[in-house]
């Protein structure tokens, strides 16, 4: 009954940073793909497009979310992840190999690579789910925990469907359900995994970090139920080819707009008026999510591939905005926290670990990347330009992370600890 908090809860800094360091590397890889093949990336179901989508949603977004999950579990879940170093090492390794082999499989069309991708990606994702999910069912449940559970279940199902499709690609034999499986795979991955996890985190972070009015209990209690039921019914509708399947997209879209509205209101009315880059990222994120929802609704009504592309790009950028905003807070905090807890007298302040000027640099480049990539759906030159700006953004992010880590290492080896005086 009372299992829970322990003194050594926070995972070692390397656990989280190994995931975060990989994010800009995949970001630069994505930028290269977009720069050299802008037309192909914008062509739905083109192998290059599929490679780019998986680098974005697995190599960048899921990679950062796994890193954040390892950190959040100890705070929100209350129970530390067992053998955290070894487990993080394997999960990270599997995910890296999986994303690279899957992207390679799409680009090269090599069946063996699809098999390798299935083994490593499926392994990594199901490994995370079996490791963390049981811990989320222990102790007192709360809304964020419920969201995290649902997100991990959706991710596991997404992975299973991914494995099914990868085996179809490997054998070049597609079942009659291939298109349906792909739709379900997208819905579960984008809404079930990414949107639900971000909403769950927002319920905690926005209220507590910015000291805003709490989200309404009704909203917290029912948001995940509405999404879960809508996704479940949408899957049944898709597999049984029933009409009006778009109704479920409408319901989910309305809920996401509700989330955007209520979050914008809380950010606007926050008590902590001091503005920082993370708030700018959250604000940009909710604008991009609104754009993604509107573009998806337009694509449902007219079926234009451009609307679909805008929706997917804006959704990816929404998730990236939240990730970059949170990463800019988590990394300096972790460096500070681990040094301070170890008793180093000269632990640098958070604002000196990633200075505001470089954090603002990442934000400016993010806004330019967002603008050019969305305009790029209509003017291909802008899309190629977005790749260059995106590459600059991920390079700066990598520099920020490396400098933060170097400062951590430097203080570890040169700093004075309280016990030494």
């Amino acid at each position, binding site marked *: 009954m009372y299992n829970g*908090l322990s*003194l050594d809860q926070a995972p070692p800094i390397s656990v989280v940073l190994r995931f975060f360091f990989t994010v800009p590397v995949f970001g630069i890889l994505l930028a290269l793909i977009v720069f050299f093949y802008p037309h192909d990336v914008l062509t739905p179901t083109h192998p290059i497009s599929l490679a780019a989508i998986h680098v974005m949603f697995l190599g960048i977004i899921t990679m950062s979310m796994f890193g954040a999950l390892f950190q959040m579990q100890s705070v929100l879940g209350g129970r530390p992840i067992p053998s955290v170093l070894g487990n993080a090492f394997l999960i990270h390794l599997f995910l890296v190999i999986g994303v690279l082999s899957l992207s390679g499989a799409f680009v090269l069309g090599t069946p063996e690579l699809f098999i390798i991708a299935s083994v490593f990606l499926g392994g990594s994702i199901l490994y995370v789910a079996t490791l963390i999910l049981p811990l989320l069912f222990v*102790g*007192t449940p709360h809304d964020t925990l419920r969201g995290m559970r649902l997100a991990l279940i959706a991710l596991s199902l997404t992975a299973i469907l991914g494995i099914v499709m990868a085996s179809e690609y490997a054998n070049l034999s597609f079942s009659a359900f291939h298109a349906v499986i792909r739709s379900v795979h997208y819905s579960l991955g984008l809404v079930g995994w990414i949107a639900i996890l971000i909403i769950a985190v927002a319920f905690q972070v926005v209220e507590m970090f910015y000291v805003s009015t709490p989200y309404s209990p009704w909203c917290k209690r029912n948001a995940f139920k509405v999404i879960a039921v809508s996704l479940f019914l949408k899957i049944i509708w898709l597999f049984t080819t029933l009409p009006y399947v778009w109704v479920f997209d409408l319901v989910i879209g309305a809920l996401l707009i509700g989330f955007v509205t209520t979050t914008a209101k809380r950010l606007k009315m926050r008590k*902590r008026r001091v503005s920082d880059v993370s708030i700018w990222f959250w604000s940009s994120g909710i604008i991009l999510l609104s754009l993604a929802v509107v573009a998806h609704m337009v694509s449902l009504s007219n079926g234009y591939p451009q609307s679909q592309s805008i929706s997917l790009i804006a959704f990816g950028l929404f998730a990236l905005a939240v990730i970059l905003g949170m990463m800019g807070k988590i990394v300096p*905090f972790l460096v500070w926290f681990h040094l301070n807890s170890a008793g180093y007298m000269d632990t640098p302040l958070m*604002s000196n670990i990633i200075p505001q000027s470089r954090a603002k640099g990442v934000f400016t480049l993010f806004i330019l990347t967002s603008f050019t990539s969305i305009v790029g759906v209509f003017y291909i030159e802008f899309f190629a330009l977005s790749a260059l700006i995106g590459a600059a953004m991920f390079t700066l992010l990598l520099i920020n992370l490396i400098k933060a880590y170097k400062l951590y290492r430097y203080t570890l080896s040169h700093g004075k600890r309280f016990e030494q005086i």
Partner: protein
Amino acid sequence: MILEFMRDDHRACDHFYSEAENALAAKKTEEAKELFELFYRATNHHFDMEERELFLTFEKRTGMMGGPTQMMRYEHQQLRSQLESMRLALLENRTDDFFGIGESMMIMLQQHNMKEEQMLYPMIDRTLGDDGALMIQTLKDMEK
């Protein structure tokens, strides 16, 4: 319920901090000092309520001496040290240092509050049962 009572107290402390931070950002240094003092006192009082009454009663009833309450005490110690550094920075008009320390203090405080609100207080509520109301009265009676 202990959870509601202590959660409201967390929010009241957060409010004082936001006000102090806002005043300092608006260059109203003297007002910021007064408001920070309110936050400093309210937060230390909150820690005292937990350490002198709530945790002791919980530990006596459950026999858990080295568990979650010990973890919370350790975090109180770290947070108290942060509060002292901020107070000194404000006294010496080192505004950047105040904001710098405040950033990490706030994340740490919020993580600490999350753990208490989501795990520890519900545990205490279950342990105290009907005696919860009496405990709230005891906490209210503690001098600020």
